[in-house]
């Protein structure tokens, strides 16, 4: 039986709290929410931006959801995303691959780097029982400063004056865009992967062991499922999605590597996954909801000069309310 009341009530409660905050700085919350809504849904550009923001969130949502099936918290999607973006950028700028091989190579290397970055906390957890929440989180900062170092130093472009950017990618290293907007191929890739993962989780042996380890570790031992293996694989898979998100973001939107390629997409993956209760197809839906918050957040910034940090407040509140709801139901 699926609990749909908790997520909906959580969203509503968060809207109320953020509304109070908006009112506190003298903005009519209803008006602000209306502006958020119309700007996202009533124009071609609004809808395109909605998809643009939803795309990385589908990936990071999966990056959190899959390890969570095995009972692991991957807080490191942000860092894995940066590592994927970094690796893809190196290929885009320095590899001189022919056009047909460029994007696939970027995709592959980003997946590998995301996985590699997730492998560190995965192994530490499986071998030493080191709390993966802390290790994945701390590694985010390391990855972000690594990218910063690269774009301020070795990878800084020749045509960027003094900005900390790389040069623009060659055209063959960018994802095709449509309708004269920023809407790009990455959106479809995200949807296809989410569907594929739905099958992986629900119809394969690996998916089964994933669910058993998450639901009842002791039962997994009896069933002869290696917990360590599942821990490592689920985390690697999560890191892979986040790494791909990084590649899609640099080759679809930024078209170069720079600091702050992600505005917390990795962290947003947590509420996305929780809201979808880990179901890969529902991840698409909840990613769209958070995509809407992102678009709405930046509209609020331009219309009312409300800092985008409000999006973080939303995210944390939704998670807290969901957790509260789940605890109350469990006890209730």
């Amino acid at each position: 039986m699926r609990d749909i009341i908790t997520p909906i009530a959580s969203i509503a409660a968060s809207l109320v709290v953020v509304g109070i905050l908006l009112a506190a700085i003298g903005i009519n919350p209803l008006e602000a929410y209306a502006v958020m809504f119309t700007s996202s849904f009533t124009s071609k550009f609004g809808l395109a931006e909605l998809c643009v923001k939803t795309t990385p969130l589908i990936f990071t949502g999966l990056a959190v959801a899959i390890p969570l099936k095995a009972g692991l918290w991957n807080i490191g999607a942000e860092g894995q995303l940066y590592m994927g973006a970094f690796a893809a950028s190196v290929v885009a700028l320095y590899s001189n691959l022919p056009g047909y091989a460029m994007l696939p190579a970027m995709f592959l290397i980003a997946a590998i780097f995301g996985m590699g970055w997730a492998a560190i906390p995965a192994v530490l957890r499986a071998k030493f029982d080191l709390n993966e929440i802390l290790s994945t989180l701390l590694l985010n900062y390391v990855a972000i400063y690594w990218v910063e170092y690269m774009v301020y130093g070795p990878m800084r472009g020749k045509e960027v004056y003094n900005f900390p950017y790389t040069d623009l990618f060659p055209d063959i290293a960018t994802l095709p865009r449509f309708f004269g907007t920023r809407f790009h191929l990455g959106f479809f890739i995200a949807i296809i992967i989410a569907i594929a993962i739905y099958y992986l989780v629900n119809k394969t042996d690996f998916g089964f062991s994933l669910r058993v380890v998450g639901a009842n570790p002791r039962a997994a031992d009896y069933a002869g499922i290696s917990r360590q293996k599942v821990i490592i694989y689920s985390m690697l898979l999560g890191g892979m999605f986040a790494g791909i998100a990084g590649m899609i973001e640099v080759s679809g939107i930024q078209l170069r590597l720079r600091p702050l390629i992600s505005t917390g997409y990795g962290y947003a993956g947590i509420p996305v996954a929780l809201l979808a209760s880990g179901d890969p197809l529902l991840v698409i839906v909840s990613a769209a909801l958070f995509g809407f918050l992102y678009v709405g957040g930046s509209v609020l910034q331009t219309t009312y000069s409300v800092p985008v940090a409000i999006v973080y407040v939303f995210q944390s509140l939704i998670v807290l309310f969901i957790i509260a709801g789940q605890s109350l139901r469990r006890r209730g």
Partner: protein
Amino acid sequence: MVDPNFIASLLASSIRAGTPLLYATLGEIITERSGVLNLGLEGIMITGAFTGFAISLATGNPWLGVLCGGIAGMLLALVHAFFSITLKANQSITGLMLVLLGLGITGFLGRNYIGEVAYYLDLIKIPVLSDLPYLGEVLFSHDPLAYLAVILAALLWFILFKTRYGLEIIAAGEKPEAADSMGVDVDRVRYISTLFGGFLVGIGGAYLSLAYAKLWTEGMTAGRGWISLALVIFSGWMPQRAIFGAYLFGGLDVLSFKLQAIGVGISYHFMKMLPYVVTILVLLVSVIRKRAAFGAPTALGTPYVRGKKE
């Protein structure tokens, strides 16, 4: 090369840089000793830093700012206490959400305060002693909160290990069932410890904006909350040892800055990375050595449910 003046000023600034870490570490030690793991230090500190700054600016009284910074920290800790003690939810995730919440709210409310000048804590030069060569600068020329932090560490050591109330805190963190059967109200002890801990962490944040950096910027805690979390482990959950750890890490912070200034070629970005790498290493060492031998409260992070046998 080794100029005593340089050393003295380095040590003096290590103490100033270490003081916010010391408050946060002491706060978290008290929280964790009672069995509650609060990962939200970064968010609580930044909230304390902002609240302290805003109140000092509004009232002209930095001390009121410090107090309100502590209270703001306590309020966030209350959220954590409610989730982890009353709702018995996953403490790690709740703590983490406090980080997002703290950074989000202060980023949201704090934008108009960037570049403002508030009232700050003055230094107290202890008469006679502060005139001692070198030593005077290092030890006796600080603001009152820096002195207070050391006194507090000693006081907390005394409370934890020499009083009945300290025994109750430790019992709640080590063996909550046993504490319960001795008549200790475990939830109550944990609530009080978590709130008091949040208060200290908030003060650490207020110290940052009102005494150390003397300004407000978004995200100004810059990882200090995470470092404090590592310092708790580093000090083996002992308040008196936290003093040493906090000043050491404060010193590293200052040193990297000074080396930068005199042009030693270590990348700024790698220096920023360092605290996180060190924190992971400290954690790793602490789990490789046995948990109990290392001094972590046995029931750390586990909700206590009366009558439930694990």
